């Protein structure tokens, strides 16, 4: 379990973000400690993906601060966040389907050929294909052949490659936006295993999912977003399936909601 008096690995303070007239986030704060899994939950459109994209440098927040190890940072691009050790799995595909698995794993971080050819800009494609395979195996994902194009993989296999890439590169924090999307029951359980392994490595993990039993099973702390605001941020032990659903929908205690909870659990 994390020590909460320590400086968080990554912290967001009072983040605000609007898309034109739509206020996606207002005054959202979040702390991610080493070895801690945070569940980020909320209804469709609650602002989860927007928060992830701010944490990963895709968007700049309108308000608020981002702190890595207690030091304020502002990302000009996702590249800056990656440099700082923050890796992300995006809900909308983050892979280039026409590129090979190996090229995708190394996208933006290519290995160049040694010597003059590398200086001239040529890639060590073979190294990347071999290394990508090893990287993915290390996090428990075995792929048919890393030379294959991602477009030739099934939805679940693509998802596995995207997760593997994020986990393989992460040095501090890993943001997983609905990683169990497209996955069958067994593969979803494997993803939960990957999350636990990342936690054991001392990474901070943000896990977004609509499958509440998964969230309750794997997280240390749950942050509930509703209409762009944090409505609850508490240790997972303080929730059960019913109270979590009630917090998400804001209809706690009603009879209707209890039935829903049972249906989901």
């Amino acid at each position, binding site marked *: 379990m994390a020590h909460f008096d320590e400086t968080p690995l990554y912290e967001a303070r009072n983040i605000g973000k609007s898309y034109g007239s739509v206020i996606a986030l207002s005054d959202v704060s979040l702390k991610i400690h080493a070895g801690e899994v945070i569940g980020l939950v909320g209804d469709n459109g609650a602002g989860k993906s927007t928060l992830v994209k701010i944490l990963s440098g*895709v968007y700049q927040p309108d308000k608020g601060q981002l702190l890595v190890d207690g030091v304020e940072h502002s990302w000009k691009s*996702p590249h800056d966040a990656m440099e700082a050790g923050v890796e992300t799995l995006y809900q909308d595909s983050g892979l280039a*389907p026409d590129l090979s698995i190996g090229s995708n794993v190394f*996208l933006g971080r290519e290995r160049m050929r040694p010597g003059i050819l590398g200086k001239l*800009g040529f890639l060590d494609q073979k190294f990347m294909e071999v290394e990508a395979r090893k990287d993915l195996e290390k996090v428990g994902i075995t792929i048919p052949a890393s030379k294959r194009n991602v*477009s030739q993989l099934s939805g679940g296999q693509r998802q*596995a490659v995207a997760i593997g890439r994020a986990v393989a590169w992460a040095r501090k924090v890993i943001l997983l936006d609905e990683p169990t999307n497209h996955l069958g029951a067994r593969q979803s359980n494997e993803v939960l295993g990957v999350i636990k392994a990342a936690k054991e490595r001392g990474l901070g993990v943000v896990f977004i999912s609509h499958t509440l039993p998964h969230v309750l099973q794997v997280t240390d702390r749950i942050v509930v977003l509703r209409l762009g605001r944090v409505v609850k941020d508490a240790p997972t032990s303080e929730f059960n399936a019913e109270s979590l659903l009630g917090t998400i929908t804001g209809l706690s205690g009603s009879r209707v909601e209890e039935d829903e909870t049972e249906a989901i659990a």
Partner: protein
Amino acid sequence: MSTKVAESTTSVGNASPEKVPTLLSRLLGNQQFLLLIAFIVLVAFFTTRNSVFLSNGEFANIFADFASLILLGVAETYVIATGGIDLSVGATSGFAGVVAAFAMRSMHGSEAVVLIVGFLVCIAIGALVGVVNGVLMNYAGLVPFVATLVTLGAAGGMSIVLTGGAPIGNDPNAIATTVSIIGPFSWPVLVVIAITIISGLYLHASRFGKYTFSIGSNEFASRAAGINVKSHLMKVYVLSGVLSGITGMFFYLRLGSGAPTSGAGAELSAIAAVVIGGAQLSGGSARLSGTTLGALILTTVTSGLIIMNVQPNWNQVAVAILIAIAAGFQTLRPSKRKK
């Protein structure tokens, strides 16, 4: 724990066991190979019609035509690989040739120095148009089709305005330097072939090429992977402009003057070469070898029809038919991609 996960995901991977394709089915599924066959058949066909076709002189002509087309094809291959289109390549080549012709006409020096200056001016003009395209897309938010339509009009119009419609300069010495040196190849043709080979290596084996394809395949994923998409697109459109500028110099060397209309419509042939070569217009997938074969086939058909005394207007119909056949092949082949 990792072993347990590994085991079960392995089975995900093996769910679709890989079939080993036969050599024949591999070749038939390979657009490059089919294009090569088509090219050989066309050459054989035109030769049986008129034996002049296989002569040195005619080959020199075909290669000169090919050389005026392929650099625009290379430019268009890079641009189309990013999911864009550059309509300005033809007009830019004419404009660059005109401006270079003005510069060269005002010079008094050895032919070599004059031509080198001409090349540099062409490259600079081409790069300038590329920068304008990049700025219109990155900062004014225009889509590539519109941005390059703007520069197509501007470059084409300026060429006419500057020249009053007449060719600039009269430089038979420039033409004289292009006598063949190795068989049917003149030095400009060799330069063009060298540029084409280097461009192919860069497109398919370098980081620059990788980003070109990744942006065309998934722009968001490229940005999320830390690639500076705007700056890369700027470079690709500048490259396209520079190749167009060099083509303008090539026109000058063939005519001995800078003619304002020399590149007019050339963008369509260049795009046709790329499409025949098997590229996806939506981006992410293209092969420079395919474009090269596409350009060779286009110029072979054009020259062949001339030799057979077919009325030149049929040319465009022939090109249209080639595009239709190539596009048909792409839809017939088992799709390798789903987006």
